[in-house]
């Protein structure tokens, strides 16, 4: 098989398009690059959606933790504590166990023009179940980051807002949120990187892979398992992740520069870095 044919056969294998059977002998570098790369689609899917939905939840949780009223603050604190305080794979395990126990049901939802069926069974599938866990997890971590950023906003600026009668949502939207985002951004960049890395745990330790459709690590392990040589597939896997990480760093760096455009060059203050590793 030429490399081009390999790409056609396996480029989208991770999402079920292309050759049904994985290569099983005469492994070449091209196959490893293509399949591991196709698995990357899953990692990207999880990372992008978890970060997107997690961002909103995180803002709410971060604000909640900073709230004055205890009945808003306590639940947020508890949420952050539980999800930051335990390893991700235990969260995956417990959620999977819980999802499996749910009765297998389907609901028909009528959207007027079309009808869709929502099934609880989907919760045991990685694409939904793992995504939910990842969203909750990143929301807790980012929530803590945002909370920290809230506390380091220059008090003078908030005082000035108070003094001019800005309050509630307006004060938040116009004064606090931009500053919070700016202060939190370096740490949030790290969070994005870690979210990406955490996606490798989905199939590795918790959710089952269907029809041999898995993420990049799944295929890397597959090859390591077949060739008994860890020194090729894992570095390929690492290389892909380094590239994506650099891309994230670049994009987030661009945004960071925009958020910091009001500070004289050289004096930029990338405050509070709160990176994270596996959870």
């Amino acid at each position, binding site marked *: 098989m030429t490399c081009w044919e390999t790409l056609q056969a396996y480029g989208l294998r991770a999402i079920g398009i292309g050759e049904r059977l994985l290569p099983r002998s005469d492994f070449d570098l091209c196959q490893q690059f293509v399949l591991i790369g196709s698995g990357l689609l899953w990692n990207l899917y999880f990372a992008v959606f978890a970060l997107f939905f997690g961002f909103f939840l995180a803002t709410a949780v971060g604000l909640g933790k900073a709230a004055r009223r205890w009945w808003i603050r306590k639940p947020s604190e508890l949420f952050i504590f539980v999800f930051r305080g335990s390893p991700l794979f235990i969260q995956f395990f417990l959620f999977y166990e819980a999802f499996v126990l749910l009765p297998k049901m389907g609901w028909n939802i009528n959207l007027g023009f079309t009808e869709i069926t929502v099934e609880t069974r989907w919760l045991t599938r990685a694409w939904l179940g793992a995504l939910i866990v990842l969203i909750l997890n990143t929301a807790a971590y980012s929530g803590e980051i945002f909370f920290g950023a809230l506390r380091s906003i220059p008090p003078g600026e908030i005082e000035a807002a108070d003094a001019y*009668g800005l309050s509630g949502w307006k004060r938040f939207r116009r004064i606090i949120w931009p500053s919070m985002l700016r202060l939190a951004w370096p740490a949030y960049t790290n969070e994005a990187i870690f979210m990406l890395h955490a996606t490798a745990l989905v199939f590795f330790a918790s959710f089952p892979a269907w029809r041999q459709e898995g993420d990049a690590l799944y295929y890397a392990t597959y090859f390591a398992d077949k060739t008994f040589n860890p020194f090729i597939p894992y570095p390929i896997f690492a290389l892909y992740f380094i590239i994506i990480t650099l891309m994230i760093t670049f994009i987030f760096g661009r945004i960071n520069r925009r958020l910091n455009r009001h500070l004289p060059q050289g004096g930029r203050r990338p405050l509070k870095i709160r990176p994270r590793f596996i959870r």
Partner: protein
Amino acid sequence: MPEHLIKPTVEEKPPVIELRDLHKSFGNLEVLKGVDVTARKGDVVSLIGSSGSGKSTLLRCANLLENSQQGDVIFEGEPVKWAGHGTNRHPADRQQVIRIRTNLSMVFQQFNLWAHMTILQNVMEAPITVLKEDPAEVEERARALLVKVGIGDKCDAWPAQLSGGQQQRAAIARALAMRPRALLFDEPTSALDPELEQEVVKVIKDLAAEGRTMLLVTHDMRLAADVSDHVVFLHQGRIGEEGPPDQMFKHPRTERLRQFLSATAAA
């Protein structure tokens, strides 16, 4: 100055900012030990006193940025409602606090410009979001104000790119853009040269003529003498002496004020 000329004027004007028996401590340090200050409509009241005597703290209490531990803050006849006691005392009604602040602008000693907005945006922010005024109209007014304080060319600069005096003027413009009924100035001319100081004096006099009320903290006795209707000398957390500027500066009654002022005269 003949007493009979002042008395009637003072009495017919309604009080706008009233502080009654205000107490404030930081931990063990009692900064304000029962202070009464009244500013009537259209009046300029200056606070003078040595460094650390609690002038900034007093302004911050008037604006409810700092919670006083005892005493009343009354704005346009409406006393602030309190909840809690002692160090735990805080305003009970957030809506009231917001309403008061909308009509009461402050220029901070450290300026506190919003670092993530340009100068123009800093000035336009509160009128648009708080007062819900028309953006186009606000922008026009904001630009005019910035020109008036002499930094019309810095509209699109970030606060961090301005010199000290430029920042201070931006802060003044921001306060004026709200067209508040009362203003609190914390050393509004500390970073300004004499020329600009004169501009500010003019601005303050114009505002007073429009019927706006002002509380002014300053170290500059000439400024105080120039613009005030009433001067309050703070000393060790209490009012050392107060009165109309002419009397205060020309015929101080207490030894302490005389000593304080002698420094100015000596220069």
